[in-house]
């Protein structure tokens, strides 16, 4: 038991009565603590204290403190109010019809609480006086700690392995791949262009000749040809142009359809 630990129990040495007035409320751990201190000063068994006298001392104390300093924690004032009520219950005889607890009962409750707090303080004191580990009882000074050897067992399946291999081999490739943006001639566009190019020409001209500007880009060649051919068939159907191919794989020739021609 070190001396410091008993401090709390020893220090509230009952101050001389005149000192009471100067005791700082902050020194008390709440109103119950203050009441217990006041009760101790009656120097009788807690069971035999005069609750009435105790209430008066407390009220007087709080009054003094309030004169000296304005702030007194609300707790203390609540307790003061309760004690004033208790005092009145103790002094005024109980009416028959009164449902409120009697003054004696309230006093007993207060006494019980003071005794219980005192008991807990003594218990704490006794607890701290026990032969505690590290103060009077010791554990092994040189413990021999358990050495734990940790080994990792790595776990992987063939599938994990192959997946890892395949995915990294493809990684670069997949990143490089970007779909080629193709320009596609719509049938509508192709028809407009063909009509414009053929104009009023009644001469047979190969389709590729008309489209020569557009066929320069290899990527677009296929779509230009396909859309133009499909549109030309449509224009033939509408009777706007004539279409001729003289030999297999030969050039497609086209001209404006002569309406009056039969």
């Amino acid at each position, binding site marked *: 038991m070190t001396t410091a630990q008993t401090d709390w129990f020893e220090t509230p040495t009952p101050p001389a009565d005149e000192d009471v007035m100067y005791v700082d409320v902050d020194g008390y751990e*709440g109103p119950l603590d203050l*009441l217990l201190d006041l009760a101790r000063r009656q120097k009788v068994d807690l069971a035999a204290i005069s609750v009435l006298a105790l209430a008066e001392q407390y009220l007087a104390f709080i009054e003094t403190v309030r004169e000296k300093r304005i702030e007194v924690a609300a707790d203390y004032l609540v307790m003061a109010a309760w004690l004033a009520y208790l005092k009145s219950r103790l002094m005024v005889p109980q009416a028959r019809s009164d449902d409120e607890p009697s003054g004696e009962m309230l006093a007993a409750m207060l006494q*019980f609480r003071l*005794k219980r*707090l005192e008991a807990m303080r003594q218990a704490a004191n*006794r607890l701290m006086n026990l032969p505690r*580990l590290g103060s009077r009882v010791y554990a092994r000074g040189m413990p021999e700690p358990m050495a734990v050897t940790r080994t990792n067992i790595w776990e992987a399946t063939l599938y994990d392995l192959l997946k890892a291999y395949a995915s990294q081999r493809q990684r670069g490739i997949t990143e490089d791949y970007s779909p080629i943006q193709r320009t596609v001639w719509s049938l509508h566009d192709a028809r407009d262009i063909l009509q414009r190019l053929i104009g009023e020409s009644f001469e047979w001209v190969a389709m590729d000749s008309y489209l020569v500007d557009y066929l320069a880009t290899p990527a677009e060649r296929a779509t230009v040809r396909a859309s133009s051919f499909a549109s030309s068939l449509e224009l033939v159907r509408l009777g706007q142009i004539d279409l001729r191919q003289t030999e297999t794989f030969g050039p497609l020739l086209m001209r404006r359809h002569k309406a009056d021609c039969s």
Partner: protein
Amino acid sequence: MYDDRQEVLERHMRILEAVLFASNEPLDANSLLPFVGDGARVGELLEALQQRYAGRGVNLVRRGDKWAFRTADDLGFLLRREESETRPLSRAALETLSIIAYHQPATRAEIEEVRGVATGKGTLDLLMEAGWIRMRGRRRTPGRPVTYGTTDAFLDHFGLESLSDLPGMDELKGSGLLSGRLPATLQIPLPFDSALRDDEDPLEPDDLGSDEDHADD
């Protein structure tokens, strides 16, 4: 046959002796079992070992469910070391600790009721950090307040075999200071050392995060 059995017992006792001596933390029967093998009756072995060390300078002591070698109480005066100035517990912490020890399971409101003053959160934290108290569960009352109790480390620190060894316990019980004699608002539960009481619920998963560190395991 008898000799064989005796030999096995001796071997097991040596093993328990070595393991308990090596550790400075108390160990429970379950964690000792793997060292001696499943068939062994660790409880009996420990009691035999305790017998053997009774009266020696080092004793085998029981702390809750756990066991540890500790220097004999009566030699304390000889062994007193220059203690590195450990900060003494504040009065609030001391009172709170003893209220929890004697009244457990106790809610914060109950602690405050006994002390007649609000308990700073720091006080409970400090006691939890010291490993002496833990959150036990939740009281089955409105608001479901957390209940606090002491740990095995508390028993170990104060050299108690169980909570019934708390000093003055019988007296306090006898005087009614631990039992509710007065109106319901003053009812105080008896210390209760087992898992959960009728009016306690287990802690919720959320609670456990902060609880685990302090749980005696």
